[in-house]
């Protein structure tokens, strides 16, 4: 069964702790970024990037999307990647970016 | 081979017991019994054609098809181009439909089956690409048209007019036309512009979204609270005094949206100057006769209406002149139309009623009877005005007020 196949490479609890540690570290970096003035010029893209890393780590491992059927990925990623262009255009057209 | 379903079949089907049901070729059966209302078909088709033909002609004073200035003309030229394109597509597609249903209709007695064609990739790619090509061909004129029409008339010779939309009337302030007393020219519902001159309208709204539209001169542009929008208009020729171009609020703005109209008078340069001079002259304060009584009664009105008058104490505004700031631009945003030169207007109630004694009497007797409004929700302190209230004026007051207002040319 597809389900069983997916479970083969499933992470173990130890790995979950590791991922959580990673997430914690990234969060610490995030919090530090605004206070490092040297990073000011790239602050905005950097923070977005770090958020994206956390986002997809949780989605991929905790939500197992990495291991899931293509169908689920498609359904969800439509939403995730759909929302960006739409609202970037909205904000651009309202001179808010 | 052909078997008609009958009632027992149907019953059986309902019981769920009938597992095999005859196929009926219904078009053959029904063609025999069909009694199509033939004359009705003819009527329907002829009517469609007739209306289609009539669609091609512009008529009436508010038409977009007979432009009276370059902005509207640019739009109209583009429209004609695209309309022709659309008509060609229309004719081709409808012809194909009609051909298909005539040529390939099932004929009586022909029992053969058609070839089971599943498609033709080359053909399908072709009719994907052809529309792309047609659309690409009109893309350039469209984009050019957008930039042409939206060019802001900010040259030095352009007339600058600030427009404030109100529920449900228009206020115009000519910011470059300043009287001796330092006041700008403010008027309502009737816009005067010189012929063959670019006019830059700088617009905002005091309450909800409106849209400023004079079809013969230009397309519409919305008038949005908290935002400044621009519209360029330009009229070729002066209009006769009693035939101004009609305009209309085109964005639904509540109760009296339909009656939020206005007029655009186009004047020769000289006539325009005369008009400006008249408007910049303060109204006289009458000292005797009915008009003086009217001025007395006018005390009620100045809670909302302003008029710049030259009285014994010199030139003064007798009503409120509030302003609003939007994006760094200051707009006069009165509570009600400025009445200092009311007598010079051809219409009132936002371009809806002819300005004559009879109509005015009706207006003053009960404004909401003439034009739907919600004065019961007014809050003068907060500047929220939704119409003119009924003051239960006496007949004499009405009469004297009319005399006063009609005298203020």
């Amino acid at each position: 069964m597809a389900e069983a196949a997916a479970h083969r490479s499933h992470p173990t609890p130890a790995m979950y702790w590791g991922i959580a540690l990673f997430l914690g570290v990234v969060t610490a970096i995030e919090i530090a970024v605004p206070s490092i003035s040297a990073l000011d010029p790239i602050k905005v893209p950097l923070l977005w990037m770090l958020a994206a890393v956390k986002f997809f780590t949780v989605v991929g491992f905790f939500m197992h999307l990495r291991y899931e059927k293509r169908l689920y990925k498609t359904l969800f990623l439509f939403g995730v990647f759909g929302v960006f262009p739409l609202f970037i255009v909205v904000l651009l057209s309202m001179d808010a970016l | 081979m052909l078997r008609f379903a009958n009632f027992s079949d149907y019953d059986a089907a309902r019981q769920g017991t009938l597992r095999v049901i005859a196929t009926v070729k219904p078009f053959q059966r029904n063609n025999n019994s069909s009694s199509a209302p033939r004359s009705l078909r003819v009527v329907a088709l002829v009517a469609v054609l007739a209306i289609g033909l009539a669609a091609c002609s512009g008529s009436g004073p508010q038409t977009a098809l007979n432009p009276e200035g370059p902005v509207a003309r640019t739009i109209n030229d583009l429209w004609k181009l695209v309309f022709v394109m659309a008509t060609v597509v229309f004719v081709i597609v409808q012809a194909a439909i009609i051909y298909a249903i005539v040529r390939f209709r099932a004929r009586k007695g022909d029992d053969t089956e058609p070839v089971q064609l599943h498609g033709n990739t080359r053909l399908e790619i072709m009719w994907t690409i052809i529309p792309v090509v047609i659309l690409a061909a009109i893309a350039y004129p469209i984009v050019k048209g957008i930039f042409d029409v939206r060019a802001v008339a900010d040259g030095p010779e352009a007339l600058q007019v600030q427009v404030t939309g109100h529920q449900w009337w228009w206020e115009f302030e000519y910011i470059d036309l300043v009287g001796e007393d330092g006041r700008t020219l403010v008027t309502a519902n009737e816009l005067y512009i010189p012929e063959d001159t670019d006019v830059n309208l700088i617009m905002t709204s005091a309450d909800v979204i409106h849209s400023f539209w004079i079809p013969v001169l230009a397309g519409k542009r919305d008038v949005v609270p908290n935002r400044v929008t621009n519209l360029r208009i330009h009229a070729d020729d002066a209009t006769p005094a009693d035939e101004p171009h009609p305009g209309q609020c085109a964005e639904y703005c509540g109760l009296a949206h339909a009656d939020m109209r206005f007029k655009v008078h186009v004047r020769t340069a000289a006539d325009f100057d005369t008009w400006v001079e008249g408007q910049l002259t303060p109204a006289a304060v009458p000292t005797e006769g009915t008009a003086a009584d009217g001025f007395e009664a006018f005390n009620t009105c100045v809670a909302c209406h302003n008029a710049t008058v030259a009285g014994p104490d010199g030139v003064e505004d007798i009503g409120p002149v509030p302003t609003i700031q939007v994006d760094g631009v200051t707009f006069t945003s009165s509570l009600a139309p400025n009445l200092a030169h009311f007598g010079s207007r051809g219409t009132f109630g936002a371009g809806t009623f002819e300005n004559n004694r009879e109509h005015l009497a009706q207006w003053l007797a009960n404004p909401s009877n003439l034009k739907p409004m919600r004065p019961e929700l007014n809050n003068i302190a907060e500047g929220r005005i939704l119409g003119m209230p009924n003051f239960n004026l006496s007949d004499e007051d009405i009469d004297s007020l009319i005399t006063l207002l009609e005298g203020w040319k």
Partner: protein
Amino acid sequence: MVLDTSKDLAPAEPTGIWSWITTVDHKRIGLMYGFTALVAFFVAGLEALLIRLQLTTANGTVLSADAYNQLFTMHGLTMLLVVVMPVGAAFMNYFIPLHIGARDVAFPRANAFSYWLFLFSTVMLLSSFVLGGAPDGGWFGYAPLSTQLEEYVRMDYYAIGAQLLGIASIMASANFIATVFTMRAPGMTLMRIPVFTWMAVVVSFLLIFSLPIFGVGLFQMFFDRNFGTQFFSGGGDPLLWQHLFWLFGHPEVYVLILPAMGIVSEIFPVFSRKPLFGYPFVVFSGIAIGFMGFGVWAHHMYTAGLGPVAEAGFGLATMMIAVPTGVKIFNWIGTMWGGKVSFELPMLFAIGFVSLFVIGGLSGVLHSVVPSDYQQHDSYFVVAHFHYVLFGGGVFGYVAGAYYWYPKWTGRFLDKKLGLWHFWLMLLGFNMTFAPMHILGLNGMPRRTYRYGEDLGWEFWNQVATVGSFIIGISFLLFAWNLIRSHKRGLPAGSDPWDGRTLEWSISSPPPVHNFDEIPVVEHVDDFWHRKYATDDDGRAVRMPDVSGGTISAETATGDDGSHEEEDMHMPSPSYYPIVAAGGIVTMGYGLVYVPGGWVVVGIGALISLWGVFGWSLEPVTRGGDHE
């Protein structure tokens, strides 16, 4: 009258009003959607007739401005959200499982819940007429007009009513998506799904992704009205509402038309006796329309003050939708080409659809030409455009579907003579009503105006339009009569009256509760057709030798009496919790309209819905646990 069919459904099925209230059968739910939508169509149509009466003469006095504004708002809102969308849902409910060879939708009780929530929200919206006034801000409720008059509850009804309808729709769409992607019969690959069901999938995606945006806008409107927030007034920007609304509103118009396009894609092959020309193209163009539909929302805002660059971009993107739409049109014509076209009623309406939709589509392209739209926007030209696509397209398509599938619902044909009168009167009346609006719009008549001056020269065409609208009215009275009458007295149709191509025609009419005695194994697009016909060397269809007197139907194989007691035949048991939960939520809605006084009602509603939800989740379900 559709409700009465209870007795005619398969005998095993329980009858009586209670069985309808607790039903979780997708077919019954579909019929209820259809019936509700039909009633709503008559209500909204009546509103339209009043509008037309008022506009017959210059300075008309039939209605007050206040009444007029409520009527056109409710007419638009009802037609779109309560008539056409649910009619689509009706067909989807009934035919998605039949088309993919399933016994029901994925979540039967959630499906029932969607229907009840839809029904109650509809009742709520309509009740506003007598409870303080109906919404009067136009169907797109532009802020800040819609947030302006807190004194009236009218736009609160709009904010809450539309929100609840949206929730119902999101649930239904998630249900359909789950159904199609996980419950297809063996062999039913995605590229073998009937086009109607494909379009249903596209529509469901559109709704899933667009309704939440509308929902946020509606919350903001509601908060602005009741809690003093400043989303659209104060420091807020009114254009935010327009963006949020049209991000939903434009995909919504394709939500309204795609199911109709799906229906005619089913009808053309059957009545041309040829397969759909270019099935993959038709499917992919539908998907393309769905995608592109998300990228063009600002074409409703050309005059609102976007920059010229944005306008140009949106203008060109909008025009491009003509391409995939054209593909569909040409493929339909291609389907007829070389076929044997028979003018049965469904086919007449389908041909009407194509012909009229092209007119509406082309006027849409004329709108997309930005400078032209500066003139056309908010004029009757727009009104003409969207009635051509919505009525000429949508309504013609759905009516075609009704004539096509009525035999499946009831086992009987709709009367052909009445149907012909319906068709020709509707065609005549429709064009008389809406073609003149092109002329009126180009001649400057603004929409949403309750009166106009006699000096503007608009009277004649308005009169033509009014006469036309009554002709439409009469045609629909005939239709209603036909629906009622044929239900008992129509010609019996049998299971496969049109010599159909798709699976629903392989089962009896009306279908048994469990749809398929045995889940079919699918090998082709138009699988049922391929069981009946082979092709000869020229590619002509040849009827296969009759197996047993008539056609081969899926049931032939089993040949038993339908009393299947295998385990997998258990159907989900009826449940009244969906209606309870929906009732509770709408009670909350009523309370919200009247906050702060209404908080008590909100509380009561919350308790009722909690009861519904808990009962729902604890209730045992027959089929090995329900999926909710």
